[in-house]
């Protein structure tokens, strides 16, 4: 049986196309899927924040101070270099997509506590090339500072500005170093870890513990009788930029 040059080339081309198509399909099938809301582990840590209660306490900074002391967060005044774990954001800036021209007086222009949202679908985890940041089964978006190479992809990916890069050695900017917790070093990204080191000891996060107004409530979303679930059932809450599909675990009572 003879085969013409024309039909041979045609068959070869079609085969190559089929092989390439199969490889592409395989690659798509192996793409990591966003982890579900950790229902399998029985624990999904979350925070419910009541900004009104927080505002009643006035210029209180106890949660900020407790967090910064516990985690050796440097105080850098330069906005380009500052390191943030938990901080105050203007209500309208914290919720830019609220789409109302008439926000309530109680919150309009007022500071709201913001921190890492420990998203169920964290964009920072998706982009990290070294798996220095990943999602734990209890919902915490964890960081391994040993593994961070300082590429700052996560800083760019996080829509909440919850990640900070250490442009210089942070130690000179730490007033009093807590030896129980490491500092970070130049060239590493850092953020709130929801006090996983305290949770391991059965303690609540430092900010929650320090709040005199009980404006921050911590608990397990999987447990239907937990304090956070009770609050979410009884009060109307919103999440920051939820329309992005990140599924944050920090809820705000409005």
């Amino acid at each position, binding site marked *: 049986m003879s085969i013409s040059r024309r039909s041979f080339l045609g068959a070869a081309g079609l085969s190559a196309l089929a092989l390439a198509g199969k490889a592409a399909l395989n690659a798509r099938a192996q793409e990591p899927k966003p982890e579900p809301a950790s229902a399998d582990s029985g624990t999904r840590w979350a925070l419910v924040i009541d900004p009104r209660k927080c505002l009643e306490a006035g210029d209180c900074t106890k949660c900020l101070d407790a967090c910064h002391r516990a985690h*050796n967060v440097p105080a850098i005044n330069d906005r380009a270099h500052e390191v943030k774990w938990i901080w105050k954001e203007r209500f309208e800036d914290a919720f830019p997509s609220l789409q109302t021209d008439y926000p309530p007086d109680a919150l309009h222009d007022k500071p709201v506590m913001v921190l890492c949202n420990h998203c169920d679908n964290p964009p920072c985890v998706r982009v990290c090339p070294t798996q220095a940041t*990943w999602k*734990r089964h209890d919902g915490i978006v*964890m960081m*391994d*500072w*040993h593994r961070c190479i300082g590429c700052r992809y996560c800083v760019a990916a996080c829509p909440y500005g919850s990640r900070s890069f250490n442009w210089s050695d942070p130690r000179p900017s730490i007033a009093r*170093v*807590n*030896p*129980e*917790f*490491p*500092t*970070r*070093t130049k060239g*590493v990204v850092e953020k709130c870890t929801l006090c*996983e080191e305290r949770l*391991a000891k059965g303690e609540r996060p430092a900010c929650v513990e320090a709040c005199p107004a009980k404006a921050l409530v911590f608990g397990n979303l999987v447990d239907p009788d937990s304090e956070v679930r009770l609050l979410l059932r009884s009060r109307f809450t919103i999440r920051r930029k939820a329309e992005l599909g990140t599924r944050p675990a920090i809820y705000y009572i409005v």
Partner: protein
Amino acid sequence: MHDRHVILLVLVLFLVLITTPIWYARAAGTTARGPEPKLPELEKACVMPVEYMRTSHMDLLMTWRDQVVRQNLRTWTSPGGKAYTISLTGTCLRCHASKADFCDRCHTYAGVTPYCWDCHVDPAPLHRSRP
């Protein structure tokens, strides 16, 4: 033999050069003896046998690091069955109270600069500076 002084000069130069390591060590205050890390007075046994710790403590520390950070496992059981809380500053440095007198002595001798202390805090100087 007109160049006797030249030969002597070169000979002296040669001797000085070849004995440089000795002079250098003298000037730097190092000795031919090995490093002498200061061992804890109260505790006699480390988490693993001395021979293992001497050669492979860094491997153990890496295992500890990965267990705590990546798997959230904070207790480690030694082959002898004793449980330890995994913590560099809390467990290691509780016995080896002085990083300068223990870690640094060998590391300086061996010329290695581990970057543990870029982030982890040596509590000793903090305690000393406190009133």
